[in-house]
């Protein structure tokens, strides 16, 4: 292994900051100093975490070996790191829903999928050939955070079970 620790990857770090001047800059400094390349910063000023702090989402790229050092130096600098990892919506999940999709309010189903299953819908195909009396099918293409397909599927199953819909799941990528 080279000393850069492999190919550069993209990571998302969620922080919470006290709403005081200089806090944000103080949090970003350790990232740059530890060799991380800042890609984007999303400062959710309107939101508050349960502790009354402001959530900040930082996207950065670095070599995998550097990433832990960056998170550590953030914590050493007194920054509260809520979540760290390569968590971007970069995995795809395709499922087919079968059942009385129209009668059970398809748009509500999709809204639930997006909010509860933490997935974003990128494509929808609906096939309802003989009106709403018959069962219809819908193909959903979802983007999920990497490594969370399993969780998203669990949620999807719950949502579908509530509405008596059947989920035709893909085999997981490990099995393809």
């Amino acid at each position, binding site marked *: 292994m080279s000393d850069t620790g492999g190919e550069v990857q993209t990571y998302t770090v969620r922080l919470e900051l006290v709403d005081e001047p200089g806090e944000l800059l103080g949090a970003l400094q350790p990232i740059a100093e530890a060799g991380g390349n800042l890609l984007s910063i999303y400062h959710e000023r309107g939101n508050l975490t349960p502790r009354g702090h402001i959530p900040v989402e930082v996207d950065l790229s670095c070599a995998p070996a550097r990433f832990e050092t960056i998170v550590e130096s953030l914590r050493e600098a007194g920054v509260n790191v809520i979540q760290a990892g390569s968590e971007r919506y970069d995995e795809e999940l395709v499922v*087919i829903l079968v059942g009385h999709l129209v009668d059970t309010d398809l748009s509500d189903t999709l809204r639930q999928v997006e909010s509860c299953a933490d997935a974003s819908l990128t494509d929808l195909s609906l096939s309802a050939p003989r009106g709403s009396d018959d069962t*219809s*099918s819908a*193909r959903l293409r979802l983007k999920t955070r990497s490594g969370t397909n399993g969780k998203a599927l669990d949620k999807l199953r719950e949502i579908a079970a509530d509405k008596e819909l*059947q989920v*035709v799941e*893909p*085999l997981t990528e490990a*099995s393809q």
Partner: protein
Amino acid sequence: MSGARLAVLGAGAVGRSVVELAAEYGHTVTAVADSSSAVVDPDGVDTEAVLDRKADAGVVGDADPADAIEGPYDVLVEATPTTLGDAEPGFSHVKQGLDRDKHVVLANKGPVAERYGELRELEADSEGEIRFEATVGGAIPILSTIEDFGANHITAARGVLNGTANFILSRMAAEGLDYEHVLAEAQDLGVAEADPTFDVEGIDAALKFVILSNVLADGDQEFTLDDAAVDGITDIPGTALDLAAEDGRTIRLIGESTPEGVSVAPRLVPADGPLSVTGTLNIVQLETTHAGRLNISGRGAGGPETATAVLSDVSRLVE
């Protein structure tokens, strides 16, 4: 010993084919029984006459079925219909054979899926051994492949192990027809039985994956049908297959055996991938620890096909 003396219990498609093909494999059939009759001859029964009589009169001989189990043989072939729960009378047949220190070869899934632990205990107390290649995937050598690799070198098994359900799904996808139409066609062709419940509800596939899990767990854990999460194909409309096809995929009734358990359900698979076999073909993928993935496919049902698995088990036992 090369040729073995066989007592064949069950005169359905598999039992009859075993009787018919035994001589070709160098074995002698010394007893045949169906549910109401039997024929026993220590020197070997006239297999052709027995099969004719079964076809004409519905019986295999004038003796009592119990005479066959108590008669002279080296290997008992249990090919009676699969039953769930207590798996009787198959389980008792196996027990009687093992109690007499005889080998038993099963084509009946019931005992191996529902009472695996008890079977292995009976085997441990017997000079005889059990083998059951024919219970999983007909002619495909799945269990002997696992045996050769070692169960501890295989981390998961998955695939298509029900030809009827696979036939229906692949016809629905190819012809754009609905389930009911294709089921009727399959029944006309003899691919589906008059009561297709076992096949289309996923129970038959689940039994096979339960057996695979029992073999892969190698005594660490025991599975029965109750442990399997089973979904069938009866609710899959043609539209779902259309939507899958638009995306380069298709739907197959896929079973999975992993250390976490057993499941059978309609799943999305790549249309051009190894798991999307068509017609009545079966396929099993084995994940190995050092050799990647193995795909084994072939004919998973049928009298002569399944009989070849029974007879190779017999040969392994007596060679």
